[in-house]
């Protein structure tokens, strides 16, 4: 008699990828990918219209000239996509008033919402860090590649004003939660599911420059 068995006795491996144990049953997926129309970040009182923008031939992405508006790179993923990354950027104005002036004050877990024609998609902030311009250029493919990841949201603005120029970028990653079900509590931000985490840059700085 031979007993052929398969044992799964090993302890200690958690296979959850979320930052916690909150259930995501209060969310459902957007019915289809949809263009972003409005960005809302309650923690920094950001509420701004989103306009599609393009990368120029020198691979420079410039937000809308009105610094109260946010730009969405129209070749990046739309909210509700199953893959890719959604890239939004907005101006920082060193004298104040820029739409993303407070981006550096965001923290992991902060709620981010993007309004589309098909509904409002919630995201949960996972990373906030600063890259120099050189670091950003070096890691551009990893940070912004529209073909990679599971619809991670990437917010970018400038920082490091020297009196003449900005030396760095603040980068925020947020993971999609989905569209909140009717009647679901708004008081608590569920933690994000990350099935296949998008590549993250090696050793991203965690400190935020003032």
């Amino acid at each position, binding site marked *: *008699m031979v007993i052929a*068995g398969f*044992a*799964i006795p090993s302890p200690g491996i958690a296979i959850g990828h*979320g930052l916690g144990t909150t259930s995501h049953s209060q969310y459902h997926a957007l019915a289809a990918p949809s263009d972003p129309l409005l960005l809302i970040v309650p923690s920094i009182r950001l509420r701004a219209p989103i306009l599609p923008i393009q*990368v120029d031939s020198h691979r420079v992405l410039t937000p809308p000239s009105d610094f109260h508006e946010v730009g969405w790179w129209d070749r990046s993923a739309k909210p509700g996509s199953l893959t890719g990354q959604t890239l939004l950027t907005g101006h920082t104005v060193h004298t104040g008033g820029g739409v993303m002036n407070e981006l550096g004050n965001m923290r992991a877990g902060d709620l981010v919402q993007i309004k589309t*024609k*098909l509904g409002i998609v919630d995201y949960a902030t996972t990373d906030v860090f600063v890259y120099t311009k050189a670091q*950003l250029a070096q890691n551009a493919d990893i940070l912004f590649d529209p073909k990679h990841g599971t619809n991670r949201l990437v917010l970018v603005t400038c920082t490091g004003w020297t009196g003449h120029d900005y030396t760095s970028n603040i980068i925020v990653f947020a993971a999609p939660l989905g569209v909140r079900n009717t009647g679901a509590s708004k008081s608590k931000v569920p933690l994000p599911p990350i099935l296949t985490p998008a590549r993250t840059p090696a050793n991203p700085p965690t400190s935020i420059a003032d």
Partner: protein
Amino acid sequence: MNRRALRFSAVVGAVALSALAVAPVFAAAPVSQATAQSLQLSIAGNPVVTQLQTVTNDGSTAHEVNSNTIPPLVGIVPANNALAAAVAVQKAGANSDGTSYACAGIAGTGSSGAVNVGTSSCNIDGKPLTLNLGSLNLDLTHLLGGDGAITTALNNALGPVISQLTVPLDGLVAQLVGAINGTPLGKISLSGGLAAVEATCTANPTAAQGHSQILDASGGHTIPISITIPTGTGSATQTLTLVNLDVNLPAKPGGTDVLVHLDAVTQDLIDELTIELDTALGGQIASLDAVTKALLQPLQNALIAPLVTALQPALQAISDNLLKITVNDVTPGDAGRSVSVNTLKLGVLGAGTSLTGSALIGGTIGHVTCGPNRALVGPPSSTPTAPPTGNSKPPTVVDSGFHGASDTTRNVLTATAALMLLAGTAGLIGYRRMLTK
């Protein structure tokens, strides 16, 4: 009367036509669908565990079907006392907006996390889980019977010395057969150690995605296949890792067959059995009367070889069929609108093992399907926009710092406000002087 009959026929016809017109609506494919199955097990093609959850949504209501055939398995594998942990880890959902999700898998102790999928998750209530896929009869009775291969080998080995024995050959063979039957031969267990197996998928009306993952105890991606043989001293056992299977393989349609080194497995089995048989026979011979013992002890080594040789076809059959493992099968369908995921498939002791006569056991751990789904009313608008223009490569510069113009604007506004304030103050002073005059 005829008119009445005609009217009645007309009404019946109209009702029938209406029913026919409506019928396709009811027969239409579901808006969304998904299935989840943490464990599937069949013996000889007959399902003994089909712990399958199926959910469909007709656009307004989700319909769930749970197929649970666990009790038969409990009968088959009484020692498995943690099966509930396995069956709990499966979840499928189908929404009226044309999205669906599913996740299924198993996990060991301490896996208190969740298998997250899309916008939902499967909570894994990790408990110790020892999942035996079944007990297989090597048919030792046949091997050791009057015409059995082992008995024949014994007769051949003992034949030359039979005249010197004081006990009948049949009796001696029976004693040795009893000894062999008492060896750990019948208690060999083969196992694979895993920490977690998960399969997940999501789908919307336009696309479906699947994902599979196998983790070992160290967080890596190997399956150690081990053989455990009692040492003959009490309940002690010896475990020998035969092979570490690397399952860190990319998902692909049909999955990837993980090849076990069959020759190495067979040789390891033979080596272990040789030791155990030697010990068992030695003990059995030692208990015989002094004359027989004196005759058989020099023959012990000669007996082991034919015994192992007789067993070798069975062992080879085990090796050939024991562990056919296929991992990370993620197969898309319906032009990418559906997906099927099988994280771990096991084939145990194929039907070709004529010596064993045992049945094929097949198992799958972590099986999910999602889609195909559809939009409830026409395809959902994906916000038609002009095709993207500009550079398709990611930006290397994000020029989101604003300077210069804002200073000017702000300074102008400040100066204007100051001037207006000054003018207003001057006006008030002038007005007051005018009143006082």
